[in-house]
């Protein structure tokens, strides 16, 4: 294989720091501490199916919520005058680029039992609610952190739709709802799919959000992996096995979402 000379350092770098480490994860997942081959790690990892299931459910719920509130937002921005759109996009990106640790920490202070929100609730004369350390708080944290990842790709696709296509549909007698259902939404599907992936992947694999807003009570795949590598339960073999399962889960989920985009005819049938 002939490689361009200026490409060589890059190929070397990526092989060493991307490919080799992933191969190591696979090797570790299938070996014993003594170096022999085993399937025990994978079998042991499946014992945590409750954790996997919880992560998938919480990740899917957050992704769904992001889609429900993110799509209208992307739609609104795409409808503003073109000159102002970039300002709103920048406003969306600023929180995205601030440390997500700090954003999550901010929610900690807001949701605490003696936090700001409960102060407000008590001030209004209601009973204080226990909000932090619940699955709801974790979902809120994920939606808050990853919402821009849903809005941006959908906006990009929506803003590129040719106005003439919409006008043509209107000329042919379609009302607003039909135009949206038959023209705008199908055309924006590529953005929806990449938004779903961009929210689902970090949601499923997070360990910071669940630790900070779930208080350690809501164990997710990320927490499980972190415990095996840096926690008291040090066991990189099991940790690698869990990581491998996580990668497979994500690949399957992405395969499913990409299918939605690939076959537009089928999609129209669903609509």
């Amino acid at each position: 294989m002939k490689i361009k000379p200026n490409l060589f350092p890059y190929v070397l770098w990526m092989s060493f720091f991307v490919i080799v480490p992933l191969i190591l994860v696979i090797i570790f997942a299938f070996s014993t501490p003594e170096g022999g081959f085993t399937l025990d790690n994978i079998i042991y990892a499946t014992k945590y199916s409750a954790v996997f299931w919880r992560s998938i459910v919480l990740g899917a719920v957050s992704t769904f919520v992001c889609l429900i509130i993110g799509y209208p937002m992307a739609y609104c921005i795409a409808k503003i005058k073109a000159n102002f759109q970039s300002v709103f996009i920048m406003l969306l990106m600023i929180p995205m680029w601030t440390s997500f640790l700090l954003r999550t920490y901010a929610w900690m202070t807001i949701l605490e039992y003696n936090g700001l929100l409960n102060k407000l609730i008590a001030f209004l004369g209601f009973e204080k609610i226990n909000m932090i350390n619940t699955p709801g708080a974790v979902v809120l944290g994920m939606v808050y952190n990853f919402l821009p990842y849903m809005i941006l790709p959908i906006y990009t696709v929506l803003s590129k739709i040719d106005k003439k296509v919409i006008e043509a549909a209107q000329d042919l007698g379609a009302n607003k709802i039909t135009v949206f259902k038959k023209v705008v939404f199908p055309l924006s599907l590529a953005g929806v799919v990449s938004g779903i992936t961009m929210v689902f992947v970090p949601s499923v694999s997070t360990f910071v959000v669940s630790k900070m807003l779930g208080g350690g009570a809501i164990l997710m795949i990320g927490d499980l992996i972190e415990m095996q590598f840096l926690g008291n339960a040090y066991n990189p073999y099991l940790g690698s096995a869990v990581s491998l399962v996580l990668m497979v889960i994500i690949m399957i989920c992405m395969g499913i979402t990409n299918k939605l985009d690939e076959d537009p005819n089928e999609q129209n049938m669903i609509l």
Partner: protein
Amino acid sequence: MKILNKIYMVLIFIFLYAPIFVLIAFSFNDSKSRVVWSGFTLKWYFKLFENQEILSAFYNTLIIATVSALVATILGTAAAVGISQSKKWQKKLIMNVTNLPMINPEIVTGVSLMLLFVFIYNTFGIFKPGLITLICAHTTFCLPYVILSVMPKLRQMDPHIYEAARDLGCDPLRAFMKVVIPGIMPGIITGMIMSFTMSIDDFVISYFAGGMVQTLPIAVYSMTRKIVSPEINALSSVMFIVVFVLLIVINFRQEKDRLRGAKK
């Protein structure tokens, strides 16, 4: 309908910004309380700048971000040029590898790098997890961003200009330096600023690949695990302002670029 749209957008922006402003507001709070306001002070900022742990973490973050942004920019620019000249199947293969760190969950990237560094250290006794390994890890996840911001600029460039330079007697290197590099400079700079920002902000990968070295996000994380002091609010305000300014610079550059493109 229009008004409904506006209300909706305002609500979403309140949702996105309220927590950040709460954080900033309470960095000026006189008492340690995170809920009750008891007067204006700047003392947490002074305390922050006396905190040795945070200062050394800040120093580490800055070194790592600068070095890895530079290395990623050089390697990435060279790679982008190489990729654009490669055959189609090679291009496809390399772009797939480039996308891997972006698709893979951060935690898996972090864990896999940790395995690599520990493995190398245990076998050869070099690459002890620390500053060097962090720079390698950060360069790795910054590289795709450099490539993705340089590639479009290369595609926009007219290949005839390079050929014209060659016809006028430039050797390939000189033609590359004098013609191609200035042409793709905006992409290179954007990629570098992006890498720098990503590196400053990274927590998950550093947490696994960094051994005992503290970066700013890691210091923040360990602060949130302990008794919380308003110093962390002061710190977050400072970080917010820094990222805010960097982002405005990036956007301003892109806008200028767009306007220039429109004029042509």
